[in-house]
């Protein structure tokens, strides 16, 4: 059986978990098996999981699962999987997934593959390596395989499965070794790692005071904002916006790069974006080679034009 850990926020199933479920449902179909979701915690809405691909749902609650902890969650997952004959554990490559998967893999004595972007068959996967500069086909052996799927790699499909819910109550208190003191969520903004559209800018913008038009364009498009490394190093923008080989790796449907040269380290973090648009004064900027659309021109003239058009369309 294929198990998929699903995460939720304010009761709602995260988009990347829906993708993981699609992966799980496809894998179950390919291996002649069924797909079960594991939902953890009281406030998860389990009612839709059949539509996302779950034949069955294990809704796990109990002592030690009131808040996230790597140990508590990994124990909950591993227990459900081993008690129900699981062969695969699919986890999203979210921060939560990245903490849970390695621990669950040890508990289950499983093979572990992270950074997975596609399933090749039941025994092998395709994963990113060299920070998106390459991909590898990796074969996995053993009875249990744990796989983390890169967000935005899998198109969500809709299903019409039963998704019948079995409640599991447990006590994982002894595995909880960390205590959450406080959580600071970025409010009113789309988290970069979850964004489908991203507007990003680099040193070409000359200074932090010029980011207003970038934020506005992002806002009108419903996009998140990102930046190049020097921009965050100079504190023009927060570190959490730094994308690239040493920053965040993203894979949005659209990446608009303004005044970014396209250094190899920057490209590594963004080159998997589905559509890339580059705006740069220098026609020789390396970024144009990685772009789908390009405009050679001054950001201070181009961005206001884009903004005006986007606003026009939004209003109509």
């Amino acid at each position, binding site marked *: 059986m294929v198990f998929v850990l699903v995460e939720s926020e304010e009761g709602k199933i995260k988009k990347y978990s829906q993708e993981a479920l699609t992966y799980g449902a496809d894998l179950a179909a390919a291996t002649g098996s069924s797909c079960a979701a594991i939902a953890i915690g009281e406030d998860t809405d389990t009612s839709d999981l059949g539509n996302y691909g779950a034949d069955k749902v294990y809704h796990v609650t109990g002592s030690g699962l009131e808040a996230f902890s790597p140990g508590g969650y990994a124990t909950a997952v591993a227990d459900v999987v081993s008690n129900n004959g699981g062969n695969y554990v699919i986890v999203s490559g979210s921060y939560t997934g990245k903490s849970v998967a390695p621990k669950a893999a040890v508990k289950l004595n499983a093979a572990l593959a992270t950074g997975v972007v596609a399933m090749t068959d039941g025994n092998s996967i395709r994963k990113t390596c060299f920070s998106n500069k390459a991909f590898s086909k990796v074969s996995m052996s053993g009875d249990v395989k744990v796989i983390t799927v890169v967000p935005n790699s899998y198109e969500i499909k809709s299903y019409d499965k039963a998704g019948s819910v079995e409640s599991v109550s447990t006590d994982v208190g002894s595995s909880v070794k960390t205590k959450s003191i406080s959580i*600071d969520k970025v409010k009113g903004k789309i988290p970069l790692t979850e964004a489908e559209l991203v507007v990003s800018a680099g040193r070409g913008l000359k200074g932090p005071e010029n980011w207003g038009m970038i934020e506005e364009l992002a806002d009108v498009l419903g996009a998140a904002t990102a930046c190049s490394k020097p921009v965050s190093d100079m504190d023009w923008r927060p570190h959490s916006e730094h994308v690239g080989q040493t920053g965040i790796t993203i894979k949005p449907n659209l990446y608009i790069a303004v005044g970014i040269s396209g250094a190899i380290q920057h490209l590594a973090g963004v080159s998997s974006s589905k*559509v890339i648009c580059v705006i740069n004064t220098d026609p020789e900027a390396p970024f144009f080679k990685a772009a789908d659309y390009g405009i050679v021109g001054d950001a201070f003239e181009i961005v206001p034009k884009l903004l*005006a058009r986007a606003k026009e369309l939004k209003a109509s």
Partner: protein
Amino acid sequence: MNILVGISAVPDTTTKISFVENNTKFNTEGVQFIINPYDELALTKALEITEAQGGEVTIITVGDASVEPVMRKALAIGAQKAIRVNTVAKDGMHAAQCIKDAIAGQSYDLILTGRESIDYNGGQVAGILSEMLDMSLINVVTSIEVNDGKVTAVRDIDGGRETVEASLPCVLSAQKELCEPRIPNMRGIMQARMKPLEVVEPSVDYSATNYDSYELPAEKGSVKLIEANNAEELIDLLRTEKKLI
């Protein structure tokens, strides 16, 4: 405070990646290896902690003899000693098992690693080690403070940050912003040559994954250029051609 830092040797970030032997092996020819950038942060943080509170920083690398220059650099930055497990790690599980066996009988208050290596991008070793060694785990952290046998760290979460507390011993993985990486100075480089670098043989040779083959991403078709005085068209194309907005 004894701190173990996992150091991995990775291709320099400017490396143009290519493969040999029918795309089954990474082409190391002409490639310069560096300390994995996230591991460099872990090392610097470990030094900051031991300089303030006393104690020793040991680095550990799973790799063949070719990784020693990178390990010497970590010693030059300030680590006191080094352990090399003499094998090429097949995956994160294999590397973590090697590390676990190599440090059996030693005790560390903290184990720090990078949040991932920039070659195989596994992001596995910290989590696996914490489980194998029954230590607490705080993954992808941008701040670490150690006080009274407790560690408080800020970690990245989806859409924000979380402050987390754990008792020692604890495994943490470093994210950008944790600290500014240090550059070795001349004195450090001289001293590094004399520092102990112990080589131990691996106890396991098992791994459940195999990297069968590699490929480079598909080449982008040529870029479609839009005239600057007609820039608005980009928005229209994204809407009609790509249906993105």
